[in-house]
């Protein structure tokens, strides 16, 4: 606009100034619009590539070498470390322990969290108080949780064995027995995370339209029936989310088994040595970085595999009978019911 007005009036030198000035401004503006988004996302991608992605990829490189903590890089051994680790019974032992602890924590946790969420999804008095009460364990750090429960599960003077003893029962060898130690460690995880997951599931439950429940109640469905045929199908996506996060975290469990026996890495007989704990032992006690990287990379593949399986299962469930089917059925029933009452 201004250029056309200025052009005839201004002297030749002023004309060029008047001509370039706005275009420079405009070009600056275009540059601002086009480039700004990249400047905004760049810090994340650059930092993530440096501190997240690069170490992960480089772990694979290290796993191809004989690599000592202090001596550094040694000979190239190809997949030799992988062959050795896959034949290492301590590796399989650690994988078994990780899976066992994971299942003992994930399944009861999800079941109790669902129940707890259903309890909280009622028209309670002092809602915030109850919600805070279930979240309380979340603010205790895993290290403190491990310290507290390690003492409670003590074999000689622990609270739990004391109570068992006073009831005339035999003490449980919470550390020396494989299964009992897994239960003890899973208890620590469950104590901290059940309430947190219950709140996530509660949020999903509250998003379920209330009239679905009302029409089901009108049709004579009891509370249990309503829970299984309305609540559960509707919150499936959130349940999948909870399971996936629990898997990623659960397969990398370290703090609780590390502190359950502060001296040996995962018990005297490795009865509760998890994979990350074995990785730690391999890297910083046996100082074999090559093999430790191999363990890290294998665990990475397992976690990704679990993620893919979770994803596929959740998609299958979603298409087989999702919440939509239930909704349609109920709304039809609702319509009938309304018609009947109107008559």
């Amino acid at each position: 606009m201004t250029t056309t007005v200025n052009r005839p009036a201004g002297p030749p030198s002023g004309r060029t100034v008047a001509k370039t000035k706005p275009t420079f401004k405009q070009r600056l503006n275009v540059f601002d619009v086009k480039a700004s988004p990249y400047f905004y996302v760049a810090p994340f991608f650059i930092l993530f590539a440096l501190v997240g992605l690069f170490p992960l990829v480089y772990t694979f490189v290290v796993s191809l070498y004989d690599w000592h903590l202090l001596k550094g890089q040694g000979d190239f051994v190809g997949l030799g470390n992988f062959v050795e680790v896959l034949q290492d019974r301590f590796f399989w032992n650690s994988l078994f322990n990780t899976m066992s602890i994971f299942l003992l924590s994930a399944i009861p946790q999800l079941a109790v969290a669902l129940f707890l969420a259903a309890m909280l999804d009622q028209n309670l008095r002092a809602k915030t108080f109850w919600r805070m009460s279930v979240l309380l364990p979340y603010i205790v750090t895993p290290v403190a949780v491990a310290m507290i429960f390690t003492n409670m599960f003590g074999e000689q003077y622990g609270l739990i064995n004391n109570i068992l003893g006073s009831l005339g029962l035999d003490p449980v060898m919470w550390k020396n027995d494989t299964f009992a130690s897994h239960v003890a460690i899973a208890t620590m995880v469950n104590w901290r995370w059940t309430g947190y997951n219950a709140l996530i599931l509660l949020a999903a439950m509250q998003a379920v339209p209330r009239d679905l429940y009302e029409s089901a109640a009108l049709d004579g469905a009891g509370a249990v029936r309503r829970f299984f045929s309305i609540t559960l199908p509707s919150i499936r996506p959130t349940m999948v989310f909870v399971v996936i996060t629990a898997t990623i975290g659960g397969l990398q469990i370290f703090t609780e088994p590390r502190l359950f026996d502060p001296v040996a890495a995962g018990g005297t007989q490795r009865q509760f040595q998890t994979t990350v704990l074995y990785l730690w032992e391999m890297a910083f006690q046996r100082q074999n970085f090559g093999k430790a990287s191999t363990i890290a990379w294998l665990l990475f593949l397992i976690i990704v595999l679990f993620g893919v399986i979770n994803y596929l299962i959740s998609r299958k469930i979603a298409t087989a009978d999702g919440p939509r089917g239930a909704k349609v059925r109920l709304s039809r029933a609702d319509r009938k019911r309304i018609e009947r009452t109107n008559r």
Partner: protein
Amino acid sequence: MSVTDRTRPRAAAAEAAVPARPAARTPLRQRFLGSGTRPGFLSYGLLIAFLVSSAYPLWWSAVIGSRSNETLGETWPPLLPGGNFWKNVGEVFDTIPFWLALGNSLLISSIITLSVVSFSTLAGYAFAKLRFRGRNGLMLMVIATMAIPTQLGIIPLFMVMRTLGWTGEIGAVVVPTLVTAFGVFFMRQYLVDVIPDELIESARMDGASMISTFWHVAIPAARPGMAILGLFTFMTAWTDFLWPLLVLDAGNPTLQTALSQLQSARYVDYSVVLAGAVLATLPLLVLFALAGKQLISGIMQGAVKG
């Protein structure tokens, strides 16, 4: 509240429509299990049981931590704390550099929180509100990286820190978690609905540059989301154990690695260990009392959006 208002007339209609149902239930059972609108004693009883199981381990630690090691041997633990708490705390202070560890943890968690929240808001805003080539592809990358366990890259990270001579320093703990994919994803989801496009357009019409639009329009709207993300990032950084254990030494620990030293001392006095656990939980208890509501709404919002 609105739920009750909506359900009451419907419930009344239900009783009118099916008169046999309410009569079949005894009033006692209804009081116990609850009528449709208010839960009964059973629900509150179960919630109280959950409350006890949530709180008791902490309470028990406070009881043992304020008495002596011998209390642990008693069949039924005493119900109330004793008078030894400060004596035990004194021993905690003698064993580990508690205040240094607390200061380190505060510093590390604050820097990480500041960095994650700033970069996540910036990138989340770009993904939510700006149009640029490759946006969808890059966003997919963010989502994909959320599921990648980057913690498994600890061995090369450790080698890098040692080469840089950063082991033993706070910086080594801070650097690997300066950004998170979850943070970007969270802020993107938050900002998509919170800022109307018209607001950005009108700021641009008024001649505001991109960055000043971000500063004056996006940031004020993003504040609640930034607070939630900040709270969670702080908690995650505060509870981290494996990485600080690797790169810091006993002389310059975080609170978590320092606490773990109590447990691994040669002669373990359990009342001191538990006093330490309680002492380290106290700041978070205070935070919980002050910001517990925000924490709950954060978890619940993240669930719906995530």
